[in-house]
């Protein structure tokens, strides 16, 4: 049996990294993800975890260190936040291109400006299309479980892709939650040692990352496309098996909350969903038919599952906690992704985008309440008067 502890998202992630028996860790300080690294440093110093703990010279260096380590057959971990995530941009594509299943935790933080420490999904979303598996945990428990599942998914020989395991800065990374910590022996059973035949070993010399001719480009990119598309099946299998072994059953794609007979719903990802759930519950007590759909896996984007989940409502509002200046719909990527998913149905369901919680501000109960009221208004009118609302200014 595992033990239940009250720990933060950071400590939950670090605990999972220890359970995964990671070999090489590369650090660089930036708030708020730092809490994961300091916990890992402590575990290494105390002899709880046998790993090389490398002091990266920056985030670009961090990703480069794990690139080399993973290519040598080690299980690796790194992480970052905010401008650290974007500083490493060059290295994300080579990592997925060489099919190295490194894991990077991202505890979100705004980019500069505003330069504060607050959480915003912009950092992780900047690198969303680089061939990495990506998703958001909404609680410390989910952060721990996600870390373990992502290693298993990424290292599956049918996938071999890196993973961004994201959690909102502070709202998840620094808030204590009850976490059921699984037994090491059971984790071993779930997560076998990392084996990659495409490694640097003098007994089987290989050339990794040779330069391509343009005519080889399409095939190379097509393989990476097939890998991320093919990961869908593995993601489902791994969530199933995780549920069987540990008793926590997640829908790998979307979590639906009080959506039965709901007429309007919010589509959201990350920890703010937990605040929104309270509002949904209260509104339900008042007889309002509202619901919530939380996206769990962002890459690969579960187009079909999102379509199925959202097409039963009269109106859908997306909550973007990121900036995407100039984007179609003038809100954020969740709006454009949701619309793209729903457009395939030829449905005429109005979608509006809410941009909220920027700069790391809380998205308050009051704000979620206003969003639901706006959705109701649109449902009644049959159409929206505006396609996006920037909070708190426009609602």
């Amino acid at each position, binding site marked *: 049996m595992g033990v239940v502890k009250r720990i933060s998202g950071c400590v939950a992630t670090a605990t999972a990294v220890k359970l995964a028996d990671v070999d090489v860790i590369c650090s660089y300080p930036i708030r708020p993800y730092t809490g994961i690294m300091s916990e890992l440093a402590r575990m290494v110093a105390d002899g709880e975890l046998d*790993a090389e703990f490398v002091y990266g010279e920056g985030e670009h260096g961090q990703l480069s260190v794990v*690139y*080399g380590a*993973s290519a040598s*057959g080690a299980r690796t971990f790194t992480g970052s936040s905010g401008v650290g995530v974007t500083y490493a941009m060059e290295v994300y594509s*080579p990592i997925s291109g060489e099919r190295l299943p490194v894991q990077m935790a991202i505890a979100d933080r705004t980019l500069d400006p505003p330069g504060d420490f607050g959480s915003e999904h912009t950092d992780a979303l900047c690198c969303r299309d680089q061939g990495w598996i990506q998703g958001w945990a909404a609680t410390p428990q989910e952060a721990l479980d996600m870390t373990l599942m992502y290693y298993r998914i990424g290292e599956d020989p049918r996938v071999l892709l890196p993973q961004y395991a994201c959690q909102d800065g502070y709202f998840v990374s620094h808030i204590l939650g009850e976490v059921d910590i699984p037994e090491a022996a059971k984790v071993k059973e779930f997560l076998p*040692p990392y084996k990659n035949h495409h490694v*640097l070993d003098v*007994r089987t010399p290989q050339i990794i990352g*040779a330069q391509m001719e343009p005519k080889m480009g399409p095939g190379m990119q097509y393989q990476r496309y097939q890998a991320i598309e093919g990961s869908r099946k593995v993601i489902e299998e791994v969530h199933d098996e995780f549920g069987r072994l540990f008793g926590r059953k997640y829908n790998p794609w979307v979590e639906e909350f009080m959506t039965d007979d709901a007429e309007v719903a919010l589509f959201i990802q990350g920890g703010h969903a937990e605040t929104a759930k309270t509002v949904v519950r209260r509104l339900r007590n008042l007889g309002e038919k509202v619901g919530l759909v939380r996206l769990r896996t962002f890459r690969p984007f579960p187009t079909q599952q999102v379509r199925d989940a959202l097409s039963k409502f009269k109106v859908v509002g997306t909550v973007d906690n990121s900036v995407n200046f100039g984007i179609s719909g003038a809100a954020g990527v969740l709006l454009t992704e949701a619309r793209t998913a729903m457009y395939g149905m030829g449905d005429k369901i109005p979608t509006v985008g809410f941009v909220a919680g920027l700069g790391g501000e809380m998205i308050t109960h009051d704000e979620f309440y206003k969003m639901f009221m706006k959705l109701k208004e649109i449902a009644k009118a049959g159409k929206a008067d505006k396609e996006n609302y920037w909070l708190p200014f426009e609602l």
Partner: protein
Amino acid sequence: MLEEIKSLRKAPEEEYYVPGHRTCAGCGPALQYRLVAKAAGPNTIFLGPTGCMYVANTSYGCGPWAVPWIHTQITNGGAVASGIEAAYKAIIRKKKTDAEFPNIIVMAGDGGSSDIGLQALSAAFYRGHNILFIAYDNESYANTGIQTSPTTPYGAWTTFSPAGPVIPEGKKLMPKDLPKMMAHGHPELKYLATASLSYPLDLMNKVRKGLNAEGPAFLYIHAPCPKGWSFPADKTIEMGKLAVETGMFQLYELHEGQYKLTYQPKEIKPVEEYIKLQGRFSHLQPEHIQKLQQFANGRLKEVGIEVSVPAQ
């Protein structure tokens, strides 16, 4: 331990950098690569930051190495090498492999070491990883079509430092001294030397010393580039020799903080003898050549060579 190679005849016959690449005829970096691989032997992993020794050496499924090789970004050779080293340390210690700890060699250009890759290089040495970092100096960003890098000599023509009526000398800046930057300020450094492809025995033995050192070793190898410097392809070795004989390049090792010459020309020749053979210097006026002479004299003095050619 890799033993000292007593003479060129006694050098191993086996090659680990073999035909199958597309470098220019007479390419200095390719010639030194062959010597490095020969000296290092089969228990070696090479890393290739972007540059001529990546681009001109690889095409998909085809590369000239008989040992493992991995591409790195031009920015991160030192960091990727650190990761490989850390991985091998961990997986050997944790009994996840039965492989031996390998020689880990970064083969970076002057741009990938002295400029955009400097941060990763310095960090790897600060952390003390057991790697050999080689900077092959062809004195330009060659692969992008010959642009000035921090080690391009004063007065050299490149496509970013062309000579013209307003800037008659072409490149106006004096070059960065990367080995001296590496020599001081990295307490974990275990070995540092300069070498030239024109002195192959010396070069191979320096590779071995670097690999035998238990910690980070830095080797700075002068490697003339016929295309970038505009000289005939059969003059590469001569060009390397003349660089040393004129004092434009010095061969030394660092011993307990002191520079120890490993080869001293009997007589230092004027730099003009070296530069007159290269098209990249053909626009220089006497006053510019004097500046280059002063530069060579200064560098010679720093490593303890008495200067015999006057510079006005």
